[in-house]
């Protein structure tokens, strides 16, 4: 599985008035491991809960978008280091991965995706008929 260029800006057209709206995204940090029969991807998305998470697979491309929960803090900001932007990262998948068998778990802002290779790709022994 290789990672393709990560885009940090994406232009989208807002359906209402047709003017392009540039959305700013920040790339989340990820760990990618290869396990038996597949891969595991861990992405850090602090401030994102299940409702704000969008995971899409199209052809061989996996797109993860995490929309942050809007901050409920009503006060005035004295000092900010965190970014307000949402998270987005695009990956190019190994064609052996079965898109229907992707499992996702979100725990304390960390998304863990388990991607399994499809059955057909695994080595199979062929029995010779007499």
């Amino acid at each position, binding site marked *: *599985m290789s*990672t393709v*260029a*990560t885009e*940090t800006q994406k232009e989208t057209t807002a359906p209402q008035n047709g003017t392009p709206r540039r959305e700013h995204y*920040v*790339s989340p*940090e*990820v*760990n*990618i*491991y*290869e*396990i038996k029969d597949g*891969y*595991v991807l*861990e992405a*850090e*998305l*602090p*401030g*994102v*809960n299940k409702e704000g998470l969008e995971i899409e697979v199209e052809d061989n491309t996996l797109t993860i978008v995490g929309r942050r*929960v809007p*901050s409920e*803090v*009503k*006060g*005035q*900001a*004295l*000092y*900010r*280091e*965190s*970014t307000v*932007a949402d998270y987005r990262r695009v990956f190019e998948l190994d064609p052996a991965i079965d898109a229907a068998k992707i499992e996702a778990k979100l*725990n*304390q*802002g*960390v998304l863990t995706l388990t991607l399994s290779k499809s059955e057909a790709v695994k080595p199979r022994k062929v029995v010779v008929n007499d």
Partner: protein
Amino acid sequence: MNGLTRWQRPDLSAWRLFGLRDELDRLFEHPLSELARGTSNFLNAWNPAIDVFEDTDNVIVKAELPGMKKEDIEVSMHEGVLSISGERKNESEHKDAHTFRSERFIGAFQRSVTLPSAVKDDAVQAQYKDGILTVTLPKAEEAKRKQIEIQAN
């Protein structure tokens, strides 16, 4: 009102693992303002982002700490300085598997924030949700703004 941040020696082993080109690509993915302030994770070891807010009754400090267990986070107060520290251990069951990419940080962090006003030490609350630690510190009575009545003569 900057808090004390621990200076970390740049983790140069990361350069060997990913290659210079990769690290430069990552440089542009992160907001450059973070890099200038030294708060980004780019060169240092883990340096989680901290926000400080204030309203009439409370001082609120938020820290981005995804993927931790609340037992591994320590929050303490001493003489008007709030300290948040902790350690993320590599307990992932996949740590022995072949790793393609390892951008997440493992290890200890420590951030301190000098609070803008006096707070009630024993009424401080902390909550850890969606990977964000929110510490709410109610202001001490004498620190709250007081309205002064204007007498009309």
